């Protein structure tokens, strides 16, 4: 099986660039037609306000949120940790229903989802907010903001699906920030998308309670989970969260049978230890199975973590080797150029999907089988 890292040749890079440039140009085109409308100047942002789904009313106008493991207990006029849910007179409201602050068309590979309609485009949206405070967040300028601190657009679920369809996007992706915190909006988009043949995918930290996650699984097409690390210490110190609920979410995804992939952002000295990666991958193989694609992504200094240099490519490739040795069949590296971005048949080693950054070419699949040896390749390929 040819999974060794090789230098990318100039010729193959330029060959891919043609496709990449085309894809990038498509991504940057402004949305027209049934695209998003900006809110009118001075528009009342009540368009974003809707009663939340998962919460419990308590005495004295307090509420207890039941959406994510923070289980915020929120007094009247206060908000939860996510910053986008507010207690008003004893009822909990989401403040961002139908009002994303970011809307783009991205290759599905950017999420990254490598085994879910590869080579297609996802209409990608996000509202402000997150239920974590990851010190290395690359999207902190929207994830760590409250909805009144960002520019939002009016985009109810029916228009999300219409835009995706009009622009030829195969899927809708809830991404960039943390879609768990705009749960109601994501759920309604997913319900409508399923009806209309535009599956929705969730790109998430996995910090969600079981009941709402299971409800989502029945409507979503795929999920990608950011597994930040494999220690409670990292989650507490670097993310203001906990590891165990994320592992529980992964088990729920497995149990529900929904397609999912895992990404780990490797940060030098913090979560890149050999033992930690080994423990993590052994857990994945044992609890989730060897077929779950695992991505190791390169960290860059940002937000509140700027004193650590970017992850050396060798670290990513070493993590990949550990994972393959532990039985994970599909292991990728991200944010660097490498042949480890491509998909290879775990049996015969032939290239199935060529990838360079966000450009993908399906070359070795016939349906969901390797066209060379007929090995069934896990994923959703069309």
């Amino acid at each position: 099986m040819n999974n060794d890292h090789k230098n990318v040749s100039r010729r193959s890079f330029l060959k891919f660039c043609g496709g990449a440039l085309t894809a990038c140009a498509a991504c940057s085109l402004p949305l027209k037609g049934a695209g998003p409308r900006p809110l009118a100047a001075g528009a009342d942002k009540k368009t974003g306000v809707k009663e939340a789904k998962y919460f419990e009313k308590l005495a004295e106008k307090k509420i207890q949120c039941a959406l994510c493991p923070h289980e915020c207990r929120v007094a009247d006029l206060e908000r939860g940790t996510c910053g986008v849910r507010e207690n008003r007179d004893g009822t909990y409201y989401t403040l961002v229903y139908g009002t994303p602050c970011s809307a783009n068309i991205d290759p599905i590979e950017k999420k990254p989802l490598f085994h879910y309609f590869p080579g297609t485009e996802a209409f990608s949206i996000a509202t402000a907010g997150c239920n974590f405070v990851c010190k290395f967040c690359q999207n902190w300028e929207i994830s760590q903001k409250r909805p009144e601190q960002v520019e939002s657009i009016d985009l109810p679920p029916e228009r999300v699906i219409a835009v995706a369809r009009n622009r030829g996007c195969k899927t809708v992706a809830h991404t960039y920030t943390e879609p768990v915190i705009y749960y109601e909006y994501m759920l309604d988009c997913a319900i409508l998308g399923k009806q209309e043949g535009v599956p929705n995918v969730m790109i998430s930290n996995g910090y969600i309670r079981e009941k709402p996650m299971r409800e989502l699984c029945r409507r979503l097409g795929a999920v990608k989970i950011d597994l930040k690390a494999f220690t409670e210490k990292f989650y507490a110190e670097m993310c203001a969260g906990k590891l165990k609920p994320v592992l529980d979410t992964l088990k729920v995804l497995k149990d529900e049978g929904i397609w999912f992939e895992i990404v780990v952002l490797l940060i030098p000295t913090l979560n890149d230890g050999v033992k930690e990666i080994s423990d993590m991958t052994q857990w994945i193989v044992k609890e989730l199975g060897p077929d779950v694609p695992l991505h190791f992504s390169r960290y860059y200094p940002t937000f509140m973590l700027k004193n650590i240099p970017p992850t050396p490519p060798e670290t990513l490739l070493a993590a990949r080797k550990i994972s393959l040795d532990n039985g994970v069949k599909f292991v990728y590296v991200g944010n660097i150029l490498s042949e480890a971005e491509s998909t290879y048949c775990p049996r015969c080693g032939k290239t199935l999907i060529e990838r360079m950054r966000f450009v993908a070419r399906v070359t070795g699949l016939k349906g969901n089988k390797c066209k060379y040896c007929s090995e069934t390749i896990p994923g959703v390929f069309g």
Partner: protein
Amino acid sequence: MTITRREFSKKLLAAAIGLGAPAYLPAAPSPPGKESIVALARSTRLQRVNHQIDKAAAAEYLSRALVRVAGAPSPTAAWQSLFSAGETVGIKLSCLPGPPLSSSKGLVMAIVDGLLSAGIKETRIYIWDRTGRELENAGFKPSYVGINIVGTDYYINGGYSPNIEISGSVGTCFSKIMETVDALISVPVLKDHDLAGVSIGMKNFYGAIHNPNKYHGNRCDPYVADLCNHPFIKNKWRLTVCDASRVQVHNGPAFSPRYAWEYGGLLVGRDPVALDYVGWQIIEERRKELGLKSLVMENREPTYIMSAAKLNLGNADMKFIQKIEI
């Protein structure tokens, strides 16, 4: 008449200012080990009528309190000892709960008069809170002519600095108003807080940052202390004038009539930790009278106050706090 060394120093200072001495930048609040003065005024005249304090009453009691806190011979001298003409001063209000439990207009305007008497220009006074809407709801109509009455959200891009500032456990973007002012006055309301225990002068600055929602875990501890330890706050904060005309002793931070106490009080101090500590004790005493559990028993002890003391932001020990009743 015998004059104390402190009074002599203050007179000398006032004389120096009068002679056009360079702008005086007052020292930080009393360090640990030194006595911190918290003046407590209490009167039926300071009770709210239609949710507001009478300005004349507020001005009178504020002046009397400030003279004691600053150790000055007169109210004007007190204001002049704390603020220098030419400075820009931000008066941070607490307006989230609306008129029944927001910083009272009468008190705020009494503070403004005090600043004007110190030579601060109208255009260099900022009465502010998070949003224009919250200000207006509390009776402060936004204004950009003369005295500035402005929400952080008036400024572009939400009104917060694009730069992340880190102070201990807190990473945040400050309101652009914080970057504009040279000096700060915190004008909180004395109230219970469901998570922090109490919300007084220090926690008032949660309204100065873009992401307060991230810092309510563990009773807001050590987040409130770490926030107030940032130079933007620590080096600019000169005075706290706590509106204790109506005190929310339970079920805060929103207004809950059942537990609102018409205390008719005003707390003034330069040591933010000491003032918060004294305010906390007032709430605890009233809770006891009402048969409510103490905040400690409810696992809502405002431990951020002690964390702030450990950071040398002030005193949280009554041995070093002089509570003067006006």
